[in-house]
């Protein structure tokens, strides 16, 4: 089990002490691990563009549609300052946690600062770290949040305040006696610029981003592999783009863990994305990524990534596609 005191798995229904409980969980929770925390949400000003309410709705639909049961749900701890400092600067973390982010920086993030937003970002990051941990044990794990890839070490941007993928990757590297390698597959429609920047000089982390060139950010960073696609790309061509690169990346880089950002903003209905994927296209994409990685014996942890719509339920259902695909992979691969 994890050696990091910050991360333990808990069943939301049981009050058993952790050490007694663990064996019970291992025995009963043989389903796909789903990482969720009610603290993934916080209050936002009315009509705020960020669809904050989507996180609990993702879990709601997975339970309602009986894709999962609540016994599969693992609850993360809040990410400690120590954990976050693996990626973020001391100054930023202090300012961020204590509410000293200036007006201009807040504007660039798209969020007004609040204690609530700090808390929810830390839970979200804790969730991605737990997903990575559990994936390493179980082979596959999916958070109901995560993918905040526009956060840089010293500042936030584009609705991202902490870079959860980077923190999880960094944690994975440092929490092992052997040298580990992490591949970050970022299929959100926006380039994972923060993550690219953070791991630019880190040979143990490979950043791979497929994104729409014309979408935010216009100022691009350099991932280890960037595939910039044209507006209007549809299911078939998009999938074949991923198929062109993922297998040889796995073959040549040989990661010990894949972190997969399954952003749904390449969907044609997304308000900000400029691509034209369908629900089926997203499902086939997610299935392809996870099957390809798992069948090579590499664990994969997924995050939901970006998606923008004023219809929260529709959006949440779209985000739940990766969990449904993961359930399929879990079944097919006899996990």
């Amino acid at each position, binding site marked *: 089990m994890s050696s990091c005191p910050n991360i333990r798995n808990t069943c939301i229904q049981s009050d058993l002490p952790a050490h007694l409980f663990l064996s019970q969980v291992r025995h009963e929770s043989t389903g796909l691990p789903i990482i969720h925390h009610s603290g993934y949400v916080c209050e936002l000003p*009315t*009509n705020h563009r960020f669809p904050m309410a989507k996180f609990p709705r993702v879990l709601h639909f997975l339970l309602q549609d009986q894709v999962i049961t609540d016994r599969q749900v693992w609850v993360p701890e809040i990410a400690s300052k120590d954990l976050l400092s693996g990626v973020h600067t001391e100054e930023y973390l202090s300012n961020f946690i204590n509410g000293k982010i200036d007006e201009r920086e807040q504007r660039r993030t798209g969020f007004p600062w609040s204690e609530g937003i700090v808390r929810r970002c830390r839970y979200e990051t804790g969730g991605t770290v737990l997903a990575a941990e559990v994936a390493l044990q179980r082979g596959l794990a999916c958070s109901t949040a995560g993918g905040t890839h526009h956060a840089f070490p010293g500042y936030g941007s584009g609705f991202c305040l902490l870079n959860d993928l980077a923190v999880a990757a960094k944690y994975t590297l440092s929490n092992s006696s052997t040298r580990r390698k992490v591949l970050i597959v970022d299929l959100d429609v926006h380039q994972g610029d923060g993550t690219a920047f953070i791991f630019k000089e880190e040979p143990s982390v490979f950043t791979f981003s497929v994104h729409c060139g014309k979408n935010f*950010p216009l100022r691009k960073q350099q991932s280890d592999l960037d595939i910039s696609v044209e507006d209007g790309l549809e299911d078939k061509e998009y999938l074949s783009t991923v198929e062109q690169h993922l297998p040889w990346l796995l073959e040549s880089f040989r990661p010990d863990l894949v972190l997969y950002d399954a952003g749904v903003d390449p969907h*044609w209905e997304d308000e900000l994305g400029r691509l034209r994927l369908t629900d089926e296209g997203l499902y086939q994409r997610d299935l392809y990524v996870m099957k390809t990685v798992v069948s090579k014996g590499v664990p994969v942890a997924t995050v939901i990534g970006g998606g923008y719509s004023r219809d929260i339920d529709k959006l949440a259902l779209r985000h739940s596609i990766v969990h449904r695909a993961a359930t399929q992979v879990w079944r097919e691969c006899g996990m």
Partner: protein
Amino acid sequence: MEDTEFDDILDDWFIESLKTYKDLHVYQLEHPTQVIEWTSGKTVCVAGYSLSKNEILELRLPLKLFADENKGLCAERDFKVAHGGFSDRPVRCLKHIPGTRCVVTNDGLSSNLQVWDLGGDDCDVIRRTGSVAGRRTVSERGSRVAARLSSPPQVLHGAQSSDVQLTELNSGRALYKLETDSADPLSSLHFVSDTVFLAGCCNGSVYIGDTRTSAAPQLSPPPASSGDSDLWWTDTSAGQHPSNCRVVRLSSSGRAVVSDLRSLGGAVCQAQLDVQARCCNLDDVSVSWAPTISDCISVSGFSGVVQIYNTCGWSTELQERQPLFQHRGHVVSSQQTDDSIPVFTTAHSWHPELPRTLLSAASDGSVHVWDWVDPEQSAADSPTSRTE
């Protein structure tokens, strides 16, 4: 400015715009337009104003704009050219004749109008079909034009107060002529009802005439304390009964005066607007009442922004007022070098029905359609819980 710096500015603007706009779509014309004229709820006409050949285009707006509740369902987020044609003269004024597929244009150099057929489903070419002679054969100024729904189609036009005429489009017959003592250059013509119209003069005076009668028009002098060098633009609140029609007059020094149509001599209220004029190309200033939300006016042409002011709360004393909202998109998205002329807005127009949707155009050829968030309204909304 380096490309990456500029990209950064655009990125900052993008994130900010998510909060300040409900919708925002941009389009780039090859050549700038000085006219934006709605030809239906979803289409507008634009046209170039260079001295040689110019395109006239009917653009269909991104369908996503009109999707209302289900914005996500509509992926179409680009402008499309629906119809196009060529003019060998600049287009300084373009007006749609309601109830028809016809527009009239004026080149700003003479008083004659050109008549165009926008084409239908089967034809994507905008063709010139005729012309309407101005009342005076020689005119140095371009004509202003107004049109309202009528059968057969008619157009009111003139370059100065002594030249205003109502012409039947098909026959070319003059149905009415405004008789005035002086020849004041016009900055606008508006119908306030089927037959009552307002002719706004550049010097700030206003004529109110009625096309049914040959009686002398009412003349209102410029607003009090108008300077000799002040130029004025006018708009009337459209679609209302003349008895509650209001008139706004805006001067080149940024003074806005609101009056009742029936008592133009007095002012209901006024304000000194913060127009930030850096350059003033006189042809490009435009002031407009919002057609569906009360008390709001919009101003463009003084600089690269479009400003929206709420006149509610203005007093009769001349006080400085700040805009309720500013559309800065044209400024932000134009990459300026030190020695280039700053971009300035050339035209803007409110959507006839969608309450906060406007179109704006600028000197760099950009055309934006935007649905702005009322900052006062969103501040008044109390935060509600977004948790389950």
